[in-house]
């Protein structure tokens, strides 16, 4: 469960990224956040993972107030979130396998059970045959799938993706979206930021539309 109550975010230069945001996402729900570039989509997602702190208001993730979380507790919050970043943040100095292994190493899995989980995650996104490849040799769509594998390998209850289909052609985008839908179907709460709702076609998912930092209803 994710809930925002009267959240404001003002950057040090005086720019108001978010103004009076309030919504609740229930457990197992799939929600899209739409809005033009600079509307505050990324800021909203980053507040959930405590990468940034709100200027005002409360943010609750699984009933814990993230906005007042001590910095020592932040790593444990992030371990419950699977995140796909806008700029991917792939590590190019190691193989596809090792990229996906990193979250499990951080959680302290032993090598054997970690290997099984990494393979399962790579299999889910269709990259199992490329596990030994260097990320630099992957196509744009494959890199995105690598990011998704890294986000789900820890089996998080919440999956957050920031424009996961940016720079991908329509077929790839559809693939990626279907992948997120399949995670949603097994009970994961999914939150995806996309520039506009066109890509969704006629699907029934809930949409939070941001416009200049405000929610449109």
């Amino acid at each position, binding site marked *: 469960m994710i809930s925002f109550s009267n959240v404001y975010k003002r950057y040090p230069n005086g720019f108001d990224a978010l103004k009076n945001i309030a919504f609740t996402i229930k457990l197992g729900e799939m929600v899209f956040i739409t809005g033009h570039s600079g509307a505050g989509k990324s800021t909203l997602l980053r507040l959930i*993972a405590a*990468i940034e702190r709100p200027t005002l208001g409360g943010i609750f993730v699984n009933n814990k107030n993230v906005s007042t979380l001590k910095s*020592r507790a932040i*790593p*444990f*919050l*992030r*371990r419950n979130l699977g*995140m796909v*970043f806008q700029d991917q*943040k792939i*590590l190019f*100095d190691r193989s596809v396998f090792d990229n996906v292994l*990193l*979250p499990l*190493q*951080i*959680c*302290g*899995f*032993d*090598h054997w059970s970690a290997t099984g989980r990494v393979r399962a995650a790579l299999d889910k996104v269709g990259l199992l045959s490329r596990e030994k490849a260097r990320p630099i040799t992957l196509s744009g769509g494959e890199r995105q799938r690598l990011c998704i594998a*890294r986000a789900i390998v*820890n089996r998080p209850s919440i999956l957050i993706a920031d424009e996961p289909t940016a720079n991908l052609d329509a077929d790839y985008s559809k693939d990626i979206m279907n992948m997120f839908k399949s995670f949603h179907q097994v009970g994961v709460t999914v939150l995806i930021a996309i520039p506009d709702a066109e890509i969704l076609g006629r699907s029934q998912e809930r949409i939070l539309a941001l416009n200049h930092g405000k929610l449109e209803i």
Partner: protein
Amino acid sequence: MIAWLSHHWHAFFLALRQLASAPFANLLNIIVIGVAFSLPTGVYMLLGNLQAFSGQMSEAPQLSLFLELDADKATISKIESRLKQHPQVANFQFISKDSALKQLKQGSELTDIVDSLTQNPLPDAFIINANSTEPEALEQLRAEIQKWPKAEYIQLDSAWTKRLDALLKLGQLAVLMLTALLSFALVVVTFNTIRLQILTKRDEIEVSKLIGATSNFIRRPFLYFGAIQGVAGGVIAWLIIAIVIHFINSELTDLVQLYAVDLHLYHLSVEDSISLLLFSSCLGWLGAWLSVATHLWQIEPK
């Protein structure tokens, strides 16, 4: 518990991989640390050897009594009987001027010069072993015998061990100062190495933070690296000392034959060797910790 072990094993493995990734540069670092450490360790080793040597000597404090050249047999036997009755004297040995000259001929390369002498310039002498090892008692005994008739000069052979002890104390101070200075150098070397590593691993650190790594998790491989580098430097220092001792000892064998004394350099004891490695690893760890504490907070995910 398993997670904790796994974390430490992971960090240790990462540190080793980091060492292997730039073997030449890391080896140079380790050698620098080793050379820096071999200096105080070497002086410490020498002091230990000197101390052991002076310990051997001062076990039996001896007084050498030299008589005047014109001392006759009667005087000598009188002194002999006085020495026998003296409560402070454990035993003594008389060395006549003739036997002293013989010894001098045998034990040195001065045979020609000795032969050319027309008369024996050496005095009769007594070597006296005292009961007490107390410096004050020995001094008292020396002063007393000095007043006896025909006693030319009496030398307290343990006097030089006292001087040596004073010198050793000075040496220990020097070791302490050297250790402090070069420990600082080790910390600085490690600090800089870790700083460079943190800079090159910026991306990895940022991503790790984003996906839930604690500060400890990020810090640990660097601390292990520092400690391993310190230990390796300590091992190098130990080896340098071992090589130096090997060479000095092979030179010393000649001297040993000349003077007929047991003169060997010994390496650090097992305890001292382990302390050396522990100390250098702690310093490496400290350097890494300082570096991580100064640089890691600057890398925050954006």
